[in-house]
């Protein structure tokens, strides 16, 4: 079975390609990239006017499987992924049971292989039960297929445990993904600390709760020489901390979510629980700093923190609503908006959704090199559409972008040489 993608604008940051070319897929692999390819017998896809990119990679999703399948599962989550143009997702371990052992890792991998439409790369927990007390069996987790470690959703509050986790993980080559949050400074906060919280009478989460934790983890990475990736950076200060650390040669990378670089705390007005997430939506200065960080390379990757929640968990008073929003199906147009806004060149935007997460996670994806697995996304960058929460592939509909008129969408998503999504 072969597919010939003809006449698209191929953007392959790993190989420095941005050109109108054809791409041939045979037996699940990319076999040729060039002009006027003749793939006889191949199914031909006319990609004129489309972008042809490596399959997008979301390095931060919650698939809720096992344990909270009423919110999402591996089937619905990967369906949402490919609808958003993502061919690979890395899923966080805060499932039930928690992915802190090889049995859960294997379950995820096997179910994804049998029933999923996208590649699923599990992230194991740093500590047993996400309790922040004792290290998970990282060797087991790696052998079972975990590609990174994180207690995402919770910080590793104890400095000693985080230090030892970095030291222990280092020889395995697994990056630690930090959910940087000083819980004592978060207190009972439910949105960003600032003027909007004052007006709404809601308790605030100050930026220093994130920055202090980011600084500690970056310093621990510097101290141990281990690799650290900072998840969902949302503040100006955290961007600056990572930027300075990179200059010193610390092995640190970080990601930003589309909602944090698109929305401000103003979205909370009206007590919209779909604007409630952790870290919270911040101020305009923070959004500007994130965009600057994306532009200058401080922010390596774009990741969604796709966090499905049932309507019953959102249709409640603001202070008791759960944190998080779904992101897989809105990330691409929001990222393309960065290109239109002049924040990122198109190739750099694609890199932050492909080569960068592949490099950080050490997975053999994110490129259109000959011989690579044929994960390919075809994007119509001009397509205008309206986000309709009810029509999302995800089981959950918790998006603050409902009703938004956006531009750009995946029109075909190819995983391992098979078209798994077509718009």
């Amino acid at each position, binding site marked *: 079975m072969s597919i010939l993608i003809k006449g698209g604008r191929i953007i392959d940051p790993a190989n420095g390609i941005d050109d109108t070319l054809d791409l041939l897929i045979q037996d699940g692999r990319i076999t040729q990239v060039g002009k006027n390819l003749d793939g006889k017998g191949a199914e031909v896809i006319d990609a004129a006017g489309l972008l042809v990119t490596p399959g997008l990679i979301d390095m931060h999703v919650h698939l809720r499987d096992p344990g909270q399948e009423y919110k999402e599962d591996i089937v619905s989550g990967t369906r949402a992924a490919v609808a958003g143009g993502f061919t690979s997702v890395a899923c966080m371990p805060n499932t039930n049971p928690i992915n802190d052992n090889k049995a859960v890792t294997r379950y995820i991998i096997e179910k994804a292989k049998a029933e999923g439409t996208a590649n699923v790369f599990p992230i194991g927990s740093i500590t047993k039960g996400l309790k922040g007390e004792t290290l998970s069996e990282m060797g087991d987790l790696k052998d079972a297929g975990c590609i990174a470690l994180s207690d995402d959703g919770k910080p590793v509050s104890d400095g000693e445990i985080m230090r030892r986790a970095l030291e222990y993980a280092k020889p395995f080559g697994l990056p630690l993904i930090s959910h940087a949050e000083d819980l004592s400074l978060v207190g009972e906060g439910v949105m960003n*600390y*600032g*003027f909007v*919280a*004052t*007006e*709404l*009478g*809601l*308790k*605030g989460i100050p930026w220093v709760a994130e920055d202090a934790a980011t600084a500690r983890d970056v310093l621990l990475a510097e101290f141990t020489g281990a690799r650290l990736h900072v998840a969902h950076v949302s503040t100006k200060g955290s961007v600056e901390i990572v930027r300075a650390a990179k200059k010193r040669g610390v092995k640190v990378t970080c990601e930003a979510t589309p909602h944090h670089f698109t929305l401000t705390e103003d979205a909370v007005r*009206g*007590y919209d629980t779909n604007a409630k997430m952790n870290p919270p939506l911040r101020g305009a200065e923070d959004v500007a700093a994130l965009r600057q960080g994306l532009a200058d390379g401080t922010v390596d990757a774009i990741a969604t923190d796709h966090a499905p929640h049932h309507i*019953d968990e959102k*249709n*409640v*008073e*603001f*202070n*008791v609503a759960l944190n998080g929003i779904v992101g897989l199906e809105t990330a691409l147009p929001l990222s393309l908006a960065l290109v239109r806004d002049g924040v990122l060149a198109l190739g750099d935007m694609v890199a932050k959704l492909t080569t960068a997460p592949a490099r950080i996670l050490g997975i053999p994806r994110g490129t259109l090199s000959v011989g690579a697995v044929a994960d390919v996304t075809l994007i119509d960058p001009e397509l205008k559409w309206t986000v309709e929460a009810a029509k999302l592939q995800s089981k959950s509909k918790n998006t603050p972008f409902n009703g938004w008129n956006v531009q750009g969408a995946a029109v075909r998503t190819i995983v391992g040489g098979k078209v798994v999504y077509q718009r």
Partner: protein
Amino acid sequence: MSFRHKHILGTEQLSKEDIELILDTAESLREINSREIKKVPTLRGKTIVNLFYEASTRTRTSFEIAGKRLSADTINMTASTSSVTKGETLEDTAKNIQAMKPDIIVMRHSASGAPHYLAERIHCSVINAGDGAHEHPSQALLDLLTIRQHKGRLEGLTVAIVGDITHSRVARSDLYAMTKMGMKVRLCGPGTMMPPGIERLGAEVFTDMDDAVRDADVVMMLRIQLERQGKTLLPTLREYARLYGLNPARLALAKPDAIVMHPGPLNRGVEISSYVADGKQSVILDQVENGVAIRMALLYLVAGGEASES
């Protein structure tokens, strides 16, 4: 002019004209409260549900009396007796009450925004009787009525509000309402109790209480709630009383004819000394009396308001 609001969710939504209409209406209804037969048939046949998710004696009683004096049928539902303790959602509670066809729901809730949530999901009018640290509009309106009675005007007066501003819905509602009426609002409290950006809402922020009180026309003390704020925001109540308590010496810094207000209940000896609370400048009980008139006015105006507007 007519009143166009279906709901009373906060003073933020009210215009100067709205506020004047409410105060004038309350002024004319106030007389009913001193009649021998304290009842008029104005709201006969209307059903008012007082839905209280948070303990409140005076506000609930005040709304209940206000409804009854206007001949409405008032029903009290409190958190301890409603099914909220069994985990029913606010939406389900709202739908159930809705099904019983009330005309007005008066709601008190510990979550900021809860009355807004209710108003979006229900057909009848919603009056916010206090939501979290957000707004408490009827309190602010009764404060204005009391000030107007004692001072004969509102415009140009200086009010000092002292206490935990961060967690005070009274402070926010007063601030919105008073600035709209052309009053100068000074806010004062410990550094741990001053919310960010509050000056952008038109307040002048003070850290020294003497400065805040100096030459003020009105001094309003807020209740310090030990159970909520005592943990990390204050060293001791002794020091709080010394720095932010209203005693006769400090009151002497205000204008000689300044009035003293407090939304209650009082922590005597903490934010206010008994000499001041019971002194001749205190109008605290006038506030309570005016509370009934203001709530009568709100019920009356909302019951007659257009249903299409929120």
